[in-house]
């Protein structure tokens, strides 16, 4: 097992180092795109194969692999230890499986980029950090991965760092995540303090000790509440929940495969993973669960309403991701941790598929843009020299201000004709996320809503509240996703000169991952069938009821089968209604439907489309005061006092030295005189003392 875990962890790290070093020091290596991309993909595919083999031979007995002691100080002894159990296995499968597909996709997508080697080095490093996160046996190692994925996320959001906007987005993601990380650290400190109070011997915050019945029983209610809430705050940072979700939409500044891998399928779900891993502890803090459920539900509906009004295809998907993550937290908040993980899995399939599909579209639209630039119909990027006396160039009309934007759905439309594979896979993923049976999204989302209902039924009234919000969000999801599909692939072509400028389908390295992900978006749901339809495999695999690591609350009252059937059918019809409504609007009328929606919603539409002004709110309440305060108060202090002190010391030293150097006459006899003087003094001391 030790070797196998090494085979999972080391290839991404080594290949990241290899590609990074070679690219850095041997510029000739950078052009070997197939070698770089192939190595990187293999470095993720190999761990996937290894994980599958472990997975197939796994017999419900968690295994812990210990390599070496990382740090030891007093009572604290942290080992580099990894845990192979049901939960970490399923997360590893998602990370390496989806990761390998996205690596393959990136070979085609990043073709010709000058930072090709850098991209794959970062991506592999990310996989390594993420594997550390999901396989960790103790919180410090998990935190190492947690910070590692944050770093890689930062590096990849700012991948095209020459554009200041991208750097700003990267900084924002990093800084907002720091807030959550701070809470995470606090939670670890509190736990360490509390557990060492009654636990003898070296303790490294390992899950075996932490989640044992003895430890959990000995922890006080206040401690549990504080720890659960702090871990949740940590999770809100990484998983983009209210109030820390603002970084995720901006994070779309990175290359699209990054959005698919890090900001949809894997990293943003690490908060969920953390909660699921600690589920026995979270369950003991009911107040924290209320907070988790309500924050999740509010995030879900807030992001969904924003998504309806967005025109940038990647922003729609970003808000959709925030909304789906809200669903997962909702599930965690009603004790259905394994359902949350189930949704993590299905979401990884269809959201990765959607992001990669959008990447394929953007890829094509970029070529359209280049062609149009060539024809002089849209302004080019570089400020090319023009004759001042010539007539200003006549640009084609665009449906929005500013230059041509390859990501804006308002210039797309009718793409199904040109890129059929992308359109079909994107369509499958759309109805999967919309919740049309029997695709993946239907089962996972419906299970979340059902669990919320069941929890409410068992005497937790807040669960009804989040259930209702979940239902509203469900139809919103169906609407905005169908809208995105319709505006992109159906209707008439809306880019300039559409008769002569044709987009093209992407190469095989790009559409193969799309097809695979679409296939899993179709069948992924059957891993977690609702109770009335059959046996839920994922429940058996993860649930503590069956010896798994994910705890769940005990329900005394069971919802009757007929009611469960009813909810199931209602969910399906409800989603279908959403899709149908979107079809009647955007399918028939295209962009005009946006205008009529704006009329009908009135001022609400303004709130939605300006994203509830959260960014502006943070700007005014947090960023501005800090920046202004620094400028007014700290900058003068720094320049006058701190710099003044430092420079003053330097000036003083120089002044004294200027005087003292006179002593150094360079005449050796003077030195000898000083030596003899010293001898005389020493002898005098010998005589008189």
């Amino acid at each position, binding site marked *: 097992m030790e070797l196998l875990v090494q085979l999972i962890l080391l290839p991404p790290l080594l290949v990241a180092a290899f590609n990074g070093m070679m690219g850095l020091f041997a510029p000739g290596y950078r052009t070997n795109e197939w070698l770089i991309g192939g190595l990187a993909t293999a470095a993720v595919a190999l761990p996937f194969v290894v994980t599958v083999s472990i997975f197939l031979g796994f017999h419900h007995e968690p295994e812990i692999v210990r390599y070496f002691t990382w740090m030891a100080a007093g009572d604290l002894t942290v080992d580099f230890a990894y845990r192979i159990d049901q939960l970490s296995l399923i997360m590893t499968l998602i990370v390496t499986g989806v990761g390998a597909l996205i690596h393959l996709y990136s070979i085609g997508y990043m073709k010709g980029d000058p930072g090709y080697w850098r991209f794959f080095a970062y991506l592999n490093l990310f996989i390594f950090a993420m594997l550390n996160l999901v396989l960790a046996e103790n919180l410090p190692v998990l935190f190492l991965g947690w910070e590692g994925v944050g770093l890689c996320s930062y590096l990849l959001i700012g991948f095209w760092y020459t554009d200041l906007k991208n750097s700003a987005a990267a900084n924002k993601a990093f800084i907002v995540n720091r807030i959550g990380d701070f809470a995470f650290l606090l939670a670890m400190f509190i736990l360490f303090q509390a557990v060492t109070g009654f636990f003898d011997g070296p303790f490294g915050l390992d899950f075996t000790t932490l989640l044992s019945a003895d430890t959990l029983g000995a922890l006080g209610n206040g401690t549990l509440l504080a720890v659960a809430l702090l871990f949740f705050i940590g999770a809100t940072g990484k998983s983009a929940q209210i109030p820390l979700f603002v970084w995720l939409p901006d994070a779309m500044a990175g290359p699209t495969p990054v959005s698919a891998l890090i900001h949809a399928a894997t990293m943003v779900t690490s908060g969920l993973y953390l909660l699921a891993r600690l589920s026995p502890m979270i369950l003991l803090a009911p107040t924290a669960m209320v907070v988790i459920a309500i924050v999740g539900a509010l995030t879900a509906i807030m992001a969904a309403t924003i998504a309806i009004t967005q025109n940038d295809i990647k922003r729609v998907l970003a808000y959709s991701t925030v909304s789906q993550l809200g669903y997962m937290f909702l599930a965690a908040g009603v004790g259905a941790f394994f359902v949350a993980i189930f949704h993590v899995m299905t979401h990884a399939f269809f959201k990765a598929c959607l992001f990669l599909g959008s990447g394929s579209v953007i890829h094509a639209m970029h070529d359209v843009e280049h062609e149009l630039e060539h024809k002089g119909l849209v302004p080019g990027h570089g400020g090319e020299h023009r004759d001042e006396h010539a007539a200003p160039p006549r640009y084609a009309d665009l449906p929005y201000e500013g230059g041509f934007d390859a990501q804006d759905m308002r210039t797309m439309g009718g793409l199904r004709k040109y890129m059929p594979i992308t359109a079909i896979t994107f369509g499958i993923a759309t109805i999967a996320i919309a919740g049309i049976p029997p695709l993946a999204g239907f089962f996972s989302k419906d299970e979340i809503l059902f669990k919320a209902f069941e929890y409410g039924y068992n005497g937790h009234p807040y669960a009804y509240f989040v259930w209702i919000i979940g239902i509203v969000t469900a139809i919103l999801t169906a609407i905005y996703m169908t809208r995105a599909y319709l505006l992109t692939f159906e209707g008439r072509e809306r880019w300039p000169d559409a008769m002569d400028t044709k987009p093209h389908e992407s190469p095989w390295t790009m559409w193969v991952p799309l097809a695979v992900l679409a296939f899993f978006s179709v069948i992924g749901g059957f891993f977690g069938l609702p109770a009335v339809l059959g046996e839920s495999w994922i429940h058996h695999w993860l649930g503590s009821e069956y010896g798994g690591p994910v705890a769940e609350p005990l329900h005394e009252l069971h919802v009757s089968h007929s009611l469960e059937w009813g909810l199931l059918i209602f969910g399906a019809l409800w989603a279908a209604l959403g899709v149908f409504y979107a079809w009647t609007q955007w399918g028939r009328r295209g962009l005009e439907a946006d205008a009529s929606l704006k009329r009908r919603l009135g001022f609400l539409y303004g709130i939605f489309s300006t994203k509830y002004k959260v960014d502006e709110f943070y700007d005014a309440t947090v960023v501005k005061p800090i920046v202004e305060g620094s400028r007014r108060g700290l900058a003068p202090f720094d320049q006058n006092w701190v710099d003044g002190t430092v420079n003053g010391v330097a000036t003083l030293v120089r002044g004294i030295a200027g005087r003292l150097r006179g002593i150094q006459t360079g005449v*050796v006899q003077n030195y000898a005189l000083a030596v003899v003087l010293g001898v005389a003094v020493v002898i005098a001391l010998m005589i008189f003392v």
Partner: protein
Amino acid sequence: MDLALNWYLSLSAVLFTIGVLGVLLRRNAIVIFLSIELMLNAVNLSLVAFSQAFGDVDGQILVFFVMSVAAAEAAVGLAIVIALFRNKLTVNVNEINLFRG
């Protein structure tokens, strides 16, 4: 009267002091060098006297080594004086102040 060790040591102290004064007062580098040799000799004398007083041969062995080192030092030191003279055309230490700060 029996000769005490102190007589030899006092003589050694007098010779040593004359050497010190030579180093401090003279400006000719070669004479300073001679003064250093004188200081070495003064110490050697005390060592031999101790050797005699205690009947121990180690003092004389130390003197032997000091002489060897003095010979080496004289060779290198005089070479340096020659090199200096070639550059500065003087052996007056007051005019040689390369170390001035």
